[in-house]
């Protein structure tokens, strides 16, 4: 099975020898950790933040509860697996999807044996998906990704209340779903892997537009404890297993059929999952040390714990760390002097000490140095060795920086230091929070070596200023943006396309693609800036595959070499697991640890 191969090739990065609990762990394989799967036990997790919107899967996508939805509660039509040649799709509820050549029509055949868990307890049908998509489009739901569904033919009319149904959705038979789009949307299919597209039983939609999350019906191997006691037809009390602000308990879902689930069918090891909600990361860290908690879901483990675990050989195996498709960066507004000169921007990229930044965020477990603008994960790791501004130890290279600066018009005497009046008092906005404040200062200090005097201003509401281009802010630091793990489209557009400039649209702070009249209107002296709009649009319209991936890779290189950003680091997900955890495999499908595959030691 494909999933099994996945599991085998993507090696478990966490293996712990059966330790104190069973006592004789050393007899079989001295020094070789066991990979024996261990069903049973209670997986105890900790969540720092409670669900928003009562855990409604269509209203929020926070790490908690989404990571639990993905693995354990909510199956979707398909799941996506990122790859350098373009993502591939694995059918979850559906068999492999059938897509038309023009990319406008999709047909999903639902697998046999996929059922809603208690209290509904019946097979999932295509009509259920139609109802779910209607709910996502319905304004009352305030779904966070309603935009995904608007490309379906007839969706706009439905959302506006002009049509009673969505014409592009058909269910010719109970287990066949046909979707027709009104325009080509390469990302439509992978977006169906989001839990917002997981089927919701219409029986429980009525009256729960705001709080369905407390009545969540599962299609996965587990269900919320107490959901079976919900009286569907009568007075509905929320499932007792979720106590807001306190805890969430999952137990096995009796309606889940292993044979129907290619992704999870071999697993579902823990008997139950108990999530404590609301503790601090320090609190959870202590509990993990004592073995009273197995892992925290969201938040970052405290720096002291990370240090202790990563430096102790015996404990290192209990640290799980993976890259995410999120990058943290500084921006340089291309229209604002002295950054309107590419040489200056390139010099900046040469001089910044990124290893210091890594230190400030707490070490390599919290982030890896970023060398280009699109996160590594989102381009399938294709540019792993691409370091246009790579320096020894990532500490910055003053010589090369000064060489670059000497070529700039702002360095009149060619000594490698910016000496024009525009080089002093350059405003850099940053966050007053730690470590953003320290990072801003570190970068400002680095830039002094090439003659740039930076005026660091740490403001809580810096985005109010940044979003208004007429403020002509030259630099912003410690900003973050993420994208889907299989495609950089969500980062390319919003931060580099001219459509996203300005307070109404947000996020293209560097002002790439601004027109001369816009620049004039904002009071910039510069009258033209580069644009990558055409490139972005070109890549965005390509269907998923090698061609599209190559397109993004090329664009990534182009923007990186324009040096409009200082890419600082790519965020990582790092977690410490307790000694009860025998194995905690990472799933590229969920982009997180696969909880249903976690095996626990028998008497932990």
């Amino acid at each position, binding site marked *: 099975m494909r999933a099994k191969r996945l599991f085998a090739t993507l090696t478990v990065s966490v293996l712990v020898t059966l330790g104190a609990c069973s006592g004789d762990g050393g007899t079989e394989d001295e020094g070789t950790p066991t990979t024996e799967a261990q069903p049973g036990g209670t997986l105890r997790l900790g969540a720092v933040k409670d669900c928003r919107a009562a855990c409604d899967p269509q209203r929020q996508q926070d790490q908690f509860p989404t990571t639990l939805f993905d693995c354990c509660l909510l199956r979707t039509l398909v799941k996506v697996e990122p790859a350098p040649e373009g993502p591939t799709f694995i059918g979850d509820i559906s068999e492999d999807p059938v897509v038309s050549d023009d990319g406008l029509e999709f047909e999903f055949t639902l697998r046999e044996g996929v059922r809603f868990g208690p209290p509904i307890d019946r097979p999932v049908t295509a009509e259920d998906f139609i109802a779910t998509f209607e709910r996502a489009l319905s304004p009352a739901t305030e779904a966070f990704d309603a935009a995904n569904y608007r490309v379906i033919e007839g969706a706009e009319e439905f959302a506006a209340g002009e049509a009673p149904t969505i014409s592009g959705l058909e269910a010719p038979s109970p287990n066949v779903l046909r979707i027709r789009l009104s325009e080509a949307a390469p990302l439509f299919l992978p977006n169906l892997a989001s839990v917002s597209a997981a089927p919701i039983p219409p029986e429980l939609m009525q009256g729960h537009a705001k*709080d369905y999350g407390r009545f969540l019906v599962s299609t996965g191997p587990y269900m919320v404890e107490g959901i079976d006691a919900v009286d569907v037809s009568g007075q509905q009390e929320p499932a007792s297993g979720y106590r807001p602000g306190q*805890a969430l308990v999952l137990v096995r879902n009796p309606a889940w059929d292993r044979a129907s689930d290619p992704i999870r069918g071999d697993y579902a090891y823990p008997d139950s999952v108990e999530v404590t909600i*609301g503790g601090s990361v320090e609190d959870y860290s*202590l*509990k993990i040390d004592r073995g009273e908690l197995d892992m925290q879901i969201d938040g970052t483990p405290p720096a002291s714990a990370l240090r202790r675990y990563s430096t102790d050989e015996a404990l290192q195996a209990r640290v799980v760390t993976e890259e995410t498709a999120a990058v943290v960066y500084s921006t340089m507004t291309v229209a604002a002097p002295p950054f309107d000169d590419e040489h200056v921007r390139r010099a900046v990229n040469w001089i910044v000490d990124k290893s210091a930044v890594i230190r400030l965020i707490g070490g390599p477990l919290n982030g890896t140095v970023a060398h280009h603008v699109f996160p590594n994960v989102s381009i399938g790791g294709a540019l792993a060795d691409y370091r246009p501004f790579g320096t020894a130890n990532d500490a910055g290279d003053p010589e090369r920086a000064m060489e670059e600066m000497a070529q700039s018009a702002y360095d009149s005497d060619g000594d490698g230091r910016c000496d024009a009046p525009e080089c002093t008092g350059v405003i850099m906005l940053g966050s007053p929070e730690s470590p953003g404040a320290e990072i801003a200062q570190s970068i400002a200090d680095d830039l002094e070596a090439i003659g740039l005097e930076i005026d660091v201003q740490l403001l809580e509401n810096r985005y109010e200023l940044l979003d208004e281009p007429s403020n002509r802010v030259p630099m912003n630091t410690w900003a973050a943006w993420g994208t889907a793990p299989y495609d950089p489209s969500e980062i390319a557009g919003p931060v580099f396309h001219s459509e996203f400039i300005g307070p109404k649209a947000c996020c293209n702070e560097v002002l790439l693609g601004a027109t001369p009249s816009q620049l004039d209107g904002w009071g910039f002296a510069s009258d033209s800036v580069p644009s990558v709009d055409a490139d972005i649009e070109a890549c965005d319209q390509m269907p998923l595959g090698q061609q599209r991936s190559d397109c993004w890779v090329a664009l990534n290189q182009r923007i990186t070499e324009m040096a409009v950003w200082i890419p600082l680091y790519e965020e990582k997900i790092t977690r410490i697991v307790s000694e009860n955890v025998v194995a905690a495999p990472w799933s590229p499908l969920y982009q997180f640890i696969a909880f249903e595959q976690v095996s626990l030691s028998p008497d932990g």
Partner: protein
Amino acid sequence: MLWFLLRRVVFGALVLFAVSVLTFLMYFKLPAGDPARMITRKPTESREYQLARERLGLDDPILVQYARFARGMIPLPGLFLDEDVYFSYQSNIAVKDELLLRAPYTIALGVGGVVLTLLITVPLGVAAGLRPRSRTDSTAGAFVLASISIPPFWLGGLLLFVFWFKLGIAPSSGIPASESAWEAVLAGRFILPWITTVVALGAIYVQLLRSEVSEVMGSDYVRTARAKGVPRRRIVVRHVVRGSLSSVVTVLAYDVATVVAGAVVIETVFNIPGIGRYAVEAVTASDLPVVMGTTVVFAVAIVVTGIVLDVAYLYLDPRVRYGEGSI
């Protein structure tokens, strides 16, 4: 008596009104963030944002918005904290439901904490007052100093670290989903929080009793009691403590209201899902309906406490009963 109660209730309602208006205005005046933006996380001209604004009634005049909240303050079933207005912007869960879920934990913490405080501080304070400048008195003084100086946050963390993490004899923080408040009490999860409460609250009781008892012991009526040949123990209980009770009860009543309203710091350190944390987290998240709802509940608790206190005084101090027109 009826007249007395009526006057108190009317006054209480006025207090409630004033508190709610102030809270409401503060919310609007201080930079709070746009609730529609917070909920939808979409730009302002998107459809979702507009709809959220409508749903929350954010464009209505302030008076209308306040009126909606005011309606939910009327203590009649169906109106009080009605779900249409009083729901969390963050979680969409009705304030009423959350309060009912969380109340038992806060009550367990508060009541247990106050009872333990009294059990420790009253004997200590009385004993210290009876023996000025003795070792007991110094102990009481040290306790007062410690209680005032030690921050509960720090102490709670320290107790957890020592007794749970290092020694393993106390249960950890947090309350599992399956445990009701009563079960959590039986499981001993409140012991460290109660101890922290004693240190947080205890100073004033010890100090008050210490000085009152010491003063009363030197009073003329205690001298009379001794002259009557009343045994010392009876003097202490029936004369001295009885005389010091009213000031202790005053402090106690407001401490109970405060602790029941939520010992936020202690609830945070020990991860107890109580009302206090709920309220403070709502303030941080600019969750107006929750802030209003919890403020209403707190205000009601304090007003009711005040009324109960006034009635208690009638029994405690007969001089109040027949004071000039006070009743």
